[in-house]
């Protein structure tokens, strides 16, 4: 029999109904695994032993009553950016190290209503600013494929936990690649939905025109099941989109015959590792074999996406993080001399180096005399990048390329120069700027480290992305590979 931690969400759902497996038993098994590996990976900030078991008992009661709902009793972990009522919600920061959320994020409330059990809150880069999970106040997360390497970021804890089979799935967020990049580096599946598809209410804000909640799972099928429960209109998020949520699982099996794939020319650049490029070409061949047609597509403004992002995101971050003032909630410095000293030292001591760097960059590009040259200019280039994507989707159904230029890098390798870290997101940022849905799926190994294939679609094309990813996963078994020592 397959071990419990190897079962997919769909299989767990079935086992809870037909095999006499209880959610309490399942929850205990995952909590034990988390405890066993937490010292090595540091994937969690909070492990919710007591409430998880209480939730599992309630789920078992619902199951005994024969309640419908595929997710009842299935365990899951939340990125510590999502507010969870009565639990610490730290966002990976000293600023919120003792913050106990008085309410649930909409994502948390919806999954709770669907019956999932929350195992814990996962580690992350501070305020989701980072690509390696090294900016967390609670220490770095390690990649289960190689403990000397980073898991990616900012959702590094969620990715490492799913890859190491410490949870069947985890929530995550993506502002510039924070779901897809760690998915690629940890050999799992990660979907960033269309901007506005998943509610941002209770999801701690970083850059509000880019932030989007999503999922890290082992397969596209599991993402489809969870996304159906998580997505949808929320009046408490002013940019939530009023569109019905499709049943994402219903269209997974559609044949790929006639699918028009665009190969992103700009992604196969000098910065792309040759072995990674080969794995992407191998994956494209698998899709071609299933009847998809391939053509090269050029998005000429895409190489400007990193500079555009590093104006827009810091600008929005400097504004969003102004709320941390040491007065109403969060960290306060000792013995403030006056109100200005209280603001400045609470923020100076409460935020880490990367967060301060971005707040200062944002403050600068928004300051008098620079606003037009930087901020308005970046918004204009953002429009050009978005128009490039729109033109491409007149010709093709999806765009495909690598998720990252290289597999996971070593801890500390990119911490001395922030720009080298920023360039790791070169292939993922475009989808955020244009608000597009995108998914990363594992497509091979390079020297024992996972490689991610990225599929980008037009707005609200999540069903198509999940369909392509699922069909690819029917033909390959990369998504079933566990890191050595975690099977």
């Amino acid at each position, binding site marked *: 029999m397959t071990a419990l931690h190897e079962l997919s969400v769909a299989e767990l759902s079935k086992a809870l109904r037909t095999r006499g497996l209880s959610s309490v038993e399942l929850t205990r098994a995952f909590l034990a695994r988390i405890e066993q590996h937490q010292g090595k990976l540091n994937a969690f900030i909070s492990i919710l032993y007591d409430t998880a078991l209480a939730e599992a008992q309630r789920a078992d009661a619902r199951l005994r009553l024969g309640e419908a709902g595929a997710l009842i009793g299935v365990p899951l972990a939340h990125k510590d950016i999502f507010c969870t009522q009565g639990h610490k919600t730290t966002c990976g920061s000293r600023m919120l190290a003792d*913050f106990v959320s*008085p309410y649930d994020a909409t994502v948390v409330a919806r999954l709770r209503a669907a019956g999932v059990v929350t195992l814990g809150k996962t580690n992350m880069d501070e305020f989701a600013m980072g690509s390696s999970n090294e900016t967390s106040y609670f220490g770095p997360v390690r990649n289960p494929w190689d403990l000397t390497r980073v898991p990616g970021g900012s959702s590094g804890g969620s990715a490492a936990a799913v890859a190491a089979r410490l949870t069947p799935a985890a929530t995550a967020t993506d502002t510039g690649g924070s779901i897809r990049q760690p998915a690629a580096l940890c050999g799992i599946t990660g979907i960033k939905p*269309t*901007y*506005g598809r998943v509610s941002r209410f209770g999801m701690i804000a970083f850059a509000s*025109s*880019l932030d989007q909640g999503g999922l890290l799972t082992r397969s596209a099928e599991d993402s489809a099941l969870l996304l159906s429960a998580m997505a949808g209109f929320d*009046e408490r998020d*002013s940019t939530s*989109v009023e569109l019905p949520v499709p049943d994402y699982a219903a269209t997974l099996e559609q044949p790929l015959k006639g699918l028009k794939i665009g190969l992103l020319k700009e992604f196969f650049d000098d910065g792309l590792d040759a072995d990674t490029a080969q794995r992407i070409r191998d994956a494209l061949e698998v899709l071609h074999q299933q009847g998809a047609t391939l053509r090269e597509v050029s998005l000429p*403004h895409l190489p*400007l996406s*990193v*500079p555009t992002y*590093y*104006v827009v995101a810091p600008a929005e971050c*400097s504004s969003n993080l102004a709320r941390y003032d040491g*007065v*109403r*909630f*969060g960290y*306060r410095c000792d013995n*403030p001399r*006056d*109100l*200005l*000293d*209280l*603001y*400045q*030292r609470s*923020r*100076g*001591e409460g935020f880490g*180096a990367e967060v*301060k*760097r971005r*707040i*200062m*960059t944002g*403050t*600068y*590009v928004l*300051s008098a005399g620079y606003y037009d040259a*930087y901020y*308005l*200019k970046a*918004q*204009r*280039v*953002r*429009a*050009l990048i*978005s128009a490039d994507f729109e033109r491409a989707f007149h010709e093709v159904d999806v765009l495909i390329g690598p998720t990252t230029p290289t597999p996971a890098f070593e801890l500390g390798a990119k911490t001395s*120069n*922030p*720009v080298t870290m*920023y360039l790791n997101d070169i292939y993922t940022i475009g989808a955020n700027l*244009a*608000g597009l849905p995108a998914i990363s799926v594992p497509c091979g190994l390079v020297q024992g480290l996972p490689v991610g294939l990225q599929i980008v679609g037009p707005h609200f094309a999540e069903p198509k992305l999940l369909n392509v990813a699922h069909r690819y996963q029917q033909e390959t078994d990369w998504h079933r590979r566990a890191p050595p020592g975690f099977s």
Partner: protein
Amino acid sequence: MSLSRQDIDKIAHLARLALTESEIPAYVENLSRILALVGELERAETNQVEPMAHPLPGQRQRLRADAVTATDQHELYQRNAPQVEAGLYLVPRVIE
């Protein structure tokens, strides 16, 4: 674009961030690097392009009825405050 020590002091003040003396050289260097990166934007021809603030086309700001929908929960919310007295947030004296 290279920033000076004085530029960093000014930006940090605008952002209400107290920096320690030992942190400052790294910010001078790294913010200059970041501005060099974003300087690449000058290459793009954007005279005829409208700035884009929202990633989805055709979205409009929703409005709701002007009705009371939230209940008073200040006691719950103030549990996270560093210092509270009689339902008020305490800060250092502002008016002498």
